[in-house]
């Protein structure tokens, strides 16, 4: 199925979870946060949160700013 990760289309397995999406972009384990369709998904729930086809996944970290 197709999901959007940080605005780019990715092809993931139908059963894919947030953890799979993070693996697809080789995200680091620490210092990141995830929102799916505008809702925060807590770290503890990444492995158990299944993505729906067409889901919009945002993976954020801290950058220089402010």
């Amino acid at each position: 199925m197709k999901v959007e990760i940080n605005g780019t289309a990715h092809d993931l397995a139908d059963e894919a979870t947030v953890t799979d999406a993070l693996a697809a972009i080789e995200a680091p384990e620490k210092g990141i946060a995830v929102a799916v369709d505008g809702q925060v998904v807590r770290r503890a729930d990444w492995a158990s949160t299944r993505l729906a086809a067409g889901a919009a996944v945002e993976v954020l970290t801290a950058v220089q700013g402010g």
Partner: protein
Amino acid sequence: MDVSQDETLVVGGRKIGSRLITGTGGAANLEVLERALVASGTTLTTVAMRRIDAQTGTGVLDLLRRLGIEILPNTAGCRTAAEAVLTARLAREALETDLVKLEVVADERTLLPDPIELLDAAEQLVDDGFTVLPYTNDDPVLARKLEQAGCAAVMPLGSPIGTGLGIRNPHNIEMIVAQAGVPVVLDAGIGTASEAAQAMELGCDAVLLATAVTRAADPERMAHAMRLAVEAGYAARHAGRIPRRYWAQASSPEIDGPRFD
């Protein structure tokens, strides 16, 4: 004589070791940023939340952790309360802190805070357990409402972000200080050291600046200057300045001078 009568700054129950809070934006690279941060003596520094990029990774976080500087995530780029609340929640998740520098700006040209959205976001985040430090207009009424909403500090601007125009309305800053029951942090607009000192002389509890240091020709040296300015301004404020007078007042004795007639 002990001249270091500094009371430690406390924001939301947290001790902040330096009254100079810095931002990390605008530095040419992490090496320049590191030297500036060390020279500033800061213990609390802002970061922004953005989509992760394989190239930059978590470099700035690694740097701040190595230097032992506490991280203050901001909500820069947010235009609505809803965006700011979501960004703050993501920052809390990523950085394991309940501190947030709340920014909700109205437009790109002025980057001035949108007071309606700002107050709405502040109320939501306080309810959600955040320690909220709002970047606000130099408006004493809005500052009071943010404090009433439960913000841990108020952070009025001196002038728009990145302008270096200094403190355009010192009287408003004084009024905010006079009525505030939480720390007042002068945030945005500082261009050079005298303006940071002025903020402290007006009674602010701290200064937050980024551009003035990171985009200076010599960021490390300017960071050092800002550190001294904040210390000097704080000391001057608490030393009790002389009243302003219209006419001169001799500082040398007026009696027993030599006579040459």
